């Protein structure tokens, strides 16, 4: 099995910057406590990140123009959201989502 030094350096370099991004906050916050205003600010991170990640998959970016709708993903989001409201169960939601997109891809 081939392992080129170019690919290896890319893997190690990107591994290092990713690891530092993940670990430095843990090291710092083991020693310091965050001020209340920052904690308040950070309490919005989950909903903001999840909404932003969802939006990324709903639209296709064209720099310089408004994004276009990713129609299969947008359609599949509807039954997924409904299953979330009904089941409140993550496994059910994921399965409904996958099956929805598979059916949509088959139909178009």
């Amino acid at each position, binding site marked *: 099995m*081939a*392992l080129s030094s170019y*690919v290896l350096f*890319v*893997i*190690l*370099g*990107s*591994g*290092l*910057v*990713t690891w530092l*991004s*993940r*670990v*430095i*906050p*843990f090291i710092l*916050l*083991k020693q310091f*406590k*965050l001020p209340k*205003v920052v904690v308040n*600010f*950070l309490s*919005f*991170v*989950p*909903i*903001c*990140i*999840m*909404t*932003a*990640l969802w*939006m*990324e*998959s709903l*639209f296709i970016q*064209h*720099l310089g123009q*408004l994004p276009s709708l990713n129609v299969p*993903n947008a359609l*599949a*989001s509807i039954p*997924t*959201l409904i*299953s*979330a*409201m009904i089941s409140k169960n*993550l496994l059910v*939601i*994921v*399965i*409904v*989502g*996958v099956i929805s997109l*598979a059916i949509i*891809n*088959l139909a178009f």
Partner: protein
Amino acid sequence: MTGDLDTRSALRETLPTVFGYIGIALAFGITARANGLSVLEIFLMSLITYAGSAEFVIVSLLALHAGIGSIVLSVFLVNARMILMSTVVAPYLSHESMVKNIWAGTLLTDETFTLSMNKLNYTDHKLNFRWLDTANLFAYTVWGVTSAIGGMLGNLINNPEKYGFSFALVAMFIGLLYLQMISDRTIKLTVQFIVALFVAVLMFFGMKWLPQNGLLLIVTLLGCGFGVVLKHGTK
């Protein structure tokens, strides 16, 4: 989700994530193989870089023979949101040892982060190393092994997107967003809803001007700021 922070509940609660990872990691392995990476390179990238969407970015840049420095910089930008997520989770583990903190951070992903945020709503805002580590390790193992399998399957399967697996993680984010909104009692539902809407609108218009990865980070920060203002304004 339950209030238990033991290994069993961690395994059970990570199952939907793992299901999503199988689909995406297979797709990643297949894509990487199609772009000329060996199975060993695919496996090492998933074990060492371990960065979902960033791995797709790396493969596309490797195919263009981009410089090492510029690839590493792109990966840093794609993953800069990890700084934010780690900052949010870390205070819940500060009672654990430094080694455990570093290890928990090492394997944290978008998915185990959002899972733990959801978990907090069931555990009276407590988290421990055992629960997070089990979730992290389960996700990590499945991601590594499955991307290698994807690489071995290689050209046997083309167009993996058509099976719908690529949507597994999107579905997970939709589900967790909904569950987060209805179960987080520390922030009013209307405030959460308006913040999510604000983020959605900014993402839509922002996509015209900024590449998605940088945009995601900026919009998240703006959304948090907006949330703080809104929370205090409606008190």
